[in-house]
């Protein structure tokens, strides 16, 4: 079994001695830090095959570790712990415990597709990131991420009506993630955003004429109307039911 480089120097595997005598020679101060030797046993031979059953990760076996994905990654530039190459490597080795150490950030992939664009082996790392995030949630290793909660609300509206409505996506997302949308609207940036959109800031500054000429009446009315009469694809019929049934069958087929 290969040794994978990152946990070799895991802080928990370092031992430091103030005084150290090796074969009768005092090497204190020179060689006082050692790395515990080990053999990896906790890998899962079937893990790669299991992850490939999640949509998006079909090509994970093609990776030859060139590192282009991580090199181009938007999130790696924000946080060097976000490392698609490394997680693909761990997936292929079946080192689930090591992947789970990063379970709180894997879901943060922004789907910018830089990795999938640059990958010379068509691994489609963006899909692998999503598959790993879904595996973590499905196996109960982590809470459902905000990203998944958002996706589920969005897809629910699509399946039900064929279309989504912006404010419904937003309010249900905040509701489902236990965030207080009223508080954000009254005292947070969201309220300031809405105020600027409706040009209330001009009113507050006493620029009555600017407020009258610039307030987006039709736009606001249209968006308000959509909140009550949801946009709907009339010919959607039972398309949503057929699609839901298909997805259910596919997931059962893959994960039982």
């Amino acid at each position, binding site marked *: 079994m290969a040794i994978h480089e990152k946990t070799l120097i895991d802080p928990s595997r370092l031992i430091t001695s103030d005084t150290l005598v090796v074969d009768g020679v005092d090497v204190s101060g020179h060689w006082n830090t050692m790395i515990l030797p080990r053999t990896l046993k906790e890998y899962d031979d079937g893990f790669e095959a299991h992850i490939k059953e999640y949509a998006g990760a079909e090509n994970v076996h093609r990776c030859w570790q060139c590192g282009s994905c991580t090199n181009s990654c938007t999130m790696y530039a924000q946080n060097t712990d976000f490392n698609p190459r490394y997680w693909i490597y761990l997936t292929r080795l079946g080192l689930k415990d090591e992947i789970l150490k990063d379970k709180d950030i894997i879901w943060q992939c922004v789907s910018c597709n830089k990795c999938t664009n640059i990958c010379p082996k068509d691994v489609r790392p963006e899909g692998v990131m999503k598959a790993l995030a879904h595996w973590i949630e499905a196996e109960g290793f982590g809470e459902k991420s905000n990203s998944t909660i958002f996706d589920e609300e969005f897809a629910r509206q699509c399946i039900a009506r064929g*279309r989504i409505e*912006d404010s419904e996506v937003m309010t249900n997302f905040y509701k489902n993630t236990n965030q207080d949308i009223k508080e954000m609207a009254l005292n947070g940036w969201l309220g300031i955003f809405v105020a*600027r959109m409706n040009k209330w800031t001009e009113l507050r500054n006493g620029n009555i004429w600017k407020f009258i*000429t610039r307030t987006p009446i039709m736009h606001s009315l249209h968006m308000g109307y959509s909140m009550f009469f949801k946009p709907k694809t009339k010919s959607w019929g039972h398309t949503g039911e057929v699609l839901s049934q298909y997805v259910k069958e596919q997931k059962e087929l893959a994960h039982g």
Partner: protein
Amino acid sequence: MAKVAYYPGCALEGSGGPYDRSTRALVKSLGMEMETVHDWNCCGAMEVKNIHPMLQTYMSARVMAIASEQMGYDTVMAPCNGCYHNLKKAEYELATSSESLDTLQGLAKKSEDPVYKGDVRTVHLLEWLMEDLGADGIKQKISKSLNGIKVANYYGCMYTRPRQIFPEKDQGPGSESSYKPHFMDDLLGAAGAVNVDFPLKTACCGGAHTLSDADTSTQLVLNIIQAAEDAGAEVIATECPTCHSGLEMHQVRAETEFGIKTNVKILYFTQLLGLAMGLSARKLGVHENVSDSLDFLHAKGVV
């Protein structure tokens, strides 16, 4: 000029309303013709594929099938990067996998929806304008110069990546480049804008996580806005409702929550081009943007 089927998508029906209005007004003023896809559905945006990729493929193919089978068009035009990306991705998937095509057609028959046969292509509004008029054609039609407004053209992720799904790009002179897109630069340059050297043309705004990971989105948006300001831009021109909303929302969030104030204006490229065609700012929905650019445009003599 070829008439196309217009697919606005959910964002242009809602928060991206000014993009829809400015697109319609611009297209009309240029004498181009399009017809809205009948009773269209959502393309699945960036979310539905995470529930299951076939859901997204189906929803995109359904739109193309309506345009082709029910309306007789061979081209669908989408101004939204997300819609454009998804339709192109479905096109690619269904052209390269007979298994996916079989599954899709089976689902369409079961749903009693029009069946996609692979005989329709999707173009972005930018591509349609370049194909039909080009920068020279636009130059002949402008009635008012953009007076050297310094613009950073921001294309975003979905217009260029992954390049596999855009076979028309990177085909040599005249074609769009997936690495260094230039169609928006060409069109706005023809209308009298000065395109600044903007290095983050295809950087990510974090649109997929605008709400679900707001701190990341704010940081990514700040990267873009500050790079544009460093390059000397007065305006960031957008071509995607998600990028546009993301830039506007997180510009406000950066200012109000983190005290980082930026001054660059954010406008849809259709609003800028429309102004150059002599259309009124109101008709183009400039006042509907959150980023208030009217005083600036007045000072520049564009409005």
